[in-house]
């Protein structure tokens, strides 16, 4: 298995980099064009989240395997302010005021597995995986 790819995230260009690397990784792993778009969209959401709320953080991309299936795993770590009301941040809607919201519900909907941990004052960790559909 390939080494995980660690990408520092601090500006919009880093979001682009993370998304492009995610797209390329998914393409290498044989994900369809449509699935690559979905993975890139989810990475965009959580990477933008880091830039907007934590200012800086890290995204780790890796290929994973389970039961003969291949997947792309994305971990986003920041040491930002954390999310006070996680339940509300995960609500699927446009009510958060600003246009792009927290991006978390979008990312969750796009991926197969999604986990978020957040401690106020300490930071947020998001772990998500997309599995390739059987060939």
């Amino acid at each position, binding site marked *: 298995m390939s080494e995980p790819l660690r990408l520092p995230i601090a*500006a*919009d*260009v880093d*979001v*682009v980099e993370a*998304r*492009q690397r995610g797209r390329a990784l998914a393409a290498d792993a044989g994900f*369809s*064009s*449509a*699935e*690559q*778009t*979905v993975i*890139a*969209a*989810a990475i*965009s*959401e959580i990477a*933008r989240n880091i830039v907007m709320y934590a200012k800086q953080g890290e995204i780790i991309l890796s290929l994973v395997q*389970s*039961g*003969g*299936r291949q997947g792309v795993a994305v971990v986003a770590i920041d040491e930002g302010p954390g999310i006070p009301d996680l339940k509300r941040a995960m609500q*699927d*809607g*446009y009510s958060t005021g*600003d*246009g*792009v*919201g927290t*991006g978390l*519900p*979008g*990312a969750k*909907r*796009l991926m197969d597995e999604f986990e978020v941990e957040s401690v106020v004052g300490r930071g947020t960790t998001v772990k998500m995986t997309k599995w390739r559909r*059987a060939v």
Partner: protein
Amino acid sequence: MTLLVGLAAVYYLGAKLGLRFAYINSSVTTIWPPTGIALAAFVLLGSRVWPAIFGAAFLANLTTTGAVWSSLGIAIGNTTEGLLGTYLVNKFAQGGHVFGRVRDIMRFTALAALFSTTVSASIGITSLALGGLLSWQDAPRVWLTWWLGDAVGDIVIAPALILWVGVKPAVAWTRRRFVEAIVLALITLLVSYGIFGGVFPTRHYPLTVLLWPVMLWAAFRFSPRESATAMLLVSFIAIWRTLGGVGPFSGYAPNESLVLLQVWSGFTAITSLVVAAVVAARREIQGTWRELAVTDPLTGLANHAQLVNALETEIRRSGRSGQPFAVVLLDLDGLKKINDRHGHLAGSLAIRRVAESLLGSCRATDTAARFGGDEFALVLPGTGEVGAWHAARGVVDRLETDAEKPSLSISMGVATYPGDGDTVEALLNAADIALYETKGRRKRRAARV
């Protein structure tokens, strides 16, 4: 370590069970599950688990005959057989995915079940003969029994293990499916008992064909995994009843009965695996077709047909509930220019970037569609004009903060049901007009500058 001990214990029990049916020589039997256990273990866990197989094989034979050197030889043969079979399955038959395709099942049968098992039979028979536990005259006949036991062990045991442990089920079972699985298992047991159980004790009616409806049920309603499991149940009952002296294969000498039964089991198992694989493949192709019929392959968004479908569904739903819904049309500006200046690859990438923005900004109930070269749409249930502009704003914000080059801009138009129209055509028309108004405004503004 726990894994190795556990595996060794399973192998040992399988071996001891098999050796209870050793009729022509205390070490040779037609029923030999360990071969299938070893093959499945190597395929699933890798060849590093060989010490467990080797140790368990050695112990099982040692405690049967007490002959150290022969047992050592047999253990070497058993381990080598599994490693060789696994090497061939991994190299030529897709390893753990072997039961997904007919071609790989055929290769599995030929390379692992029929070929790799000759190694164990040959080394084992030689070990027994050298150890004085078998006369050389008997060797060919005993070799055949050994080989058959190993081959059927591979064919009946390994598929169930590999499919249960190695392949993740696609979807969780519903309650109804669960009930059906239990009914299938019960009927499998019942039919097997009917065929092999000696319902007519003095007559050995050869009615093994009665099994086929059950195997077809497993294949067509379930997956290869359930087919392999059903076959395992059948094999178990068939062996048990045949040893009890009843059923179509009894009425011969014990070893002869078992040889006949195992030949039947081998062919039945392979045939049902093939049927199950073909059915599963067909089901998957249907799924892919169905998906291709409603999605745009480049972006994975809904296509035009699915957009119309979603609009029709929402019109019906809103007609009943009285709730409004909105449709947003979005146009990627200057796609032609991007294509001309940066090439079609950049054009495709631009389309995917817009799709990513749409996917990121819509809710689970929304539909994002690409219905033309540079034309996109969002269908937003339970949303009025304000909410629709808010959602559209999300897309624009995502594209504006996107630092990827070339930078993209989009034009939008919103229409709501029922205010702007109450048919698919009327709504799309209204949104289209709104879209061209914003486009025109922007062009005029640009021309003025």
